């Protein structure tokens, strides 16, 4: 009799990322997230319609309306929903043992779920971003325009992916760390990502989108990417390496603590289960 052998390594991580889970993106949740992701593009189309099809300002418009809104607001909000639900829904719906009872290491589980969050977020966020790019440049379209601006689009896509990676890891951790993870994540997004300009410059390091914008600004040279630290507080921008370090650090910090927290949470879960299994 042959029992199947549990997957190992990357195969295991991919299996977890593709497996069903509580709180999957279906129904109203999916439509809500798609609406948030496509809203900036819809607004741009409406603006174009009201301007009787007259041209927007090309790449500048893409950066201001498409990219900055996506990087600063849409991506963090979507990740707040996806990331926090990666594990917390399992406990709230009583399905955690389907995950923690698997013959897979805790590191594999966390990596797999994070990868799932990242993939979902990028599938939702990047298409409207790409469409926004072409929509804004359509009236200036030529081989020269493409040659000039296509690398910038690639940088933007890469930057958004980095942001999703860092923020996804943090919000996966939130989902294992706090009782109301979605609320906590939205507060974090509002404080550090959306209203970041109001915080003193020393807090800016905690804003992942400001790091992404700093990288994009330095790579593209477009002032539209300037972060609030530079715009408002006139501080010197960090180097690309420093910003990358922050983003990678967020991934490692988030995922590392999430693994530890998952182990600890299992014990807590046992305590809760044992509440009905003990007599005082």
């Amino acid at each position: 009799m042959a029992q199947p052998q549990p997957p190992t390594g990357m195969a295991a991580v991919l299996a977890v990322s593709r497996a069903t889970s509580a709180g999957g993106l279906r129904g109203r949740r999916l439509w809500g997230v798609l609406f948030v992701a496509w809203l900036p593009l819809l607004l741009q189309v409406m603006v174009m319609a009201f301007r009787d099809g007259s041209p927007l300002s090309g790449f500048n418009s893409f950066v201001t309306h498409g990219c900055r809104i996506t990087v600063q607001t849409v991506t963090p909000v979507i990740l707040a929903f996806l990331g926090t639900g990666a594990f917390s829904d399992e406990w709230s719906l009583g399905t955690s043992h389907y995950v923690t009872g698997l013959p897979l290491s805790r590191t594999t589980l966390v990596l797999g779920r994070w990868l799932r969050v990242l993939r979902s977020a990028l599938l939702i966020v990047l298409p409207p971003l790409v469409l926004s790019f072409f929509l804004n440049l359509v009236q200036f379209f030529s081989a020269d325009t493409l040659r000039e601006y296509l690398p910038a689009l690639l940088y933007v896509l890469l930057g958004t992916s980095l942001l999703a990676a860092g923020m996804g890891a943090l919000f996966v951790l939130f989902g294992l760390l706090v009782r109301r993870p979605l609320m906590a994540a939205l507060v974090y997004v509002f404080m550090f990502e959306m209203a970041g300009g109001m915080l003193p410059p020393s807090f800016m390091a905690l804003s992942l989108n400001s790091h992404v914008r700093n990288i994009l600004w330095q790579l593209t040279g477009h002032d539209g990417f300037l972060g609030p630290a530079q715009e408002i507080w006139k501080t010197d921008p960090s180097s690309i390496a420093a910003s990358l370090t922050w983003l990678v650090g967020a991934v490692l910090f988030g995922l590392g603590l999430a693994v530890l927290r998952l182990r600890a949470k299992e014990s807590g879960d046992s305590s809760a289960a044992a509440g009905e299994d003990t007599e005082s």
Partner: protein
Amino acid sequence: MSEPVATARANAPVHRAPSTELRTPARLVLQGVTRWFGDVIALNNVDLEFGPGVTGLLGSNGAGKTTMIRLMVGLAAADAGSVQLDGVPVRNHVPTLARIGYVADGDGLYEENTAREFLASQARLRGVPSAQRAALVEEIIARVGLGDAADQRAGGYSKGMRQRLKLGQAILHDPDVLILDEPLTGLDPLMRRDVIRVVRELGDAGATVIVSSHVLHEIEAMTDRVVFMRHGQVLAEGTVGHIRDLLHTEPRRVRLLTPDPADWARRLLTVNGLVKGLQLEDDALLVITERPEQLSALVQDLVLDEQLALTGLQAVDEDLGSLFQYLVN
């Protein structure tokens, strides 16, 4: 802390649906297992060994069954002692966990998924090769009787269908050890019969099956091998007959089915010290005695020699409920 990782397997043999063929016996051993929750002790120095076949885990709510089960499936760690499967610790040991199937108490399922999606996903996570996954899922669906509902979302399932799906995911990888926490709760008689059938089949095939329940007749329908628990301790373990024999000092109750119970009562009371108590019933006499063998011989004599009417004889205490009451009291 490093976590053990299963080694990749070359030339993996073809995976089949849960077998009813005999298999290598698996022994799950608990040694001195203790588990505290704050200042409350849930398990107190438990020593147990589970082997092939079905074993019932009996105890009232709060006896420590669920805590023990969570330790046995590796979902929690013991504060003291060890839980080992064939000499290997269960907790955090991937190859060992791969040999265990678990049906949890509670109703949790992925509500948005169909049974087919859920089972396919679990098969993937358990390492069933993609080429065999669909066929295996079909076999499991048929085995747990979810054929008509396989493409419905679990959110619309009845309690019984949910239990079937939970059982399906637990036997999907053909586990050597199957642990079921209150698997019959909420099932109608038909579904109950089906689940009991599957459990008995696995037990007969040599899997180590542990079934917890606080309903005694549910366990009786599956096995006569039981572990009684109370306040986090093992009160008794073994077959019902074996445990009953251990309680030889306890008086036993025997019901004589007769149209003339008063006559039987008169005759039995003439034997000094044999009867500890009597209860007249309609067409029956309940006798309480500390000497069941002597009672049996006397009843035989009275029927054969004196032609007293007797239509039947029932050993009232040979059921789990009576045993449990004795142990608890």
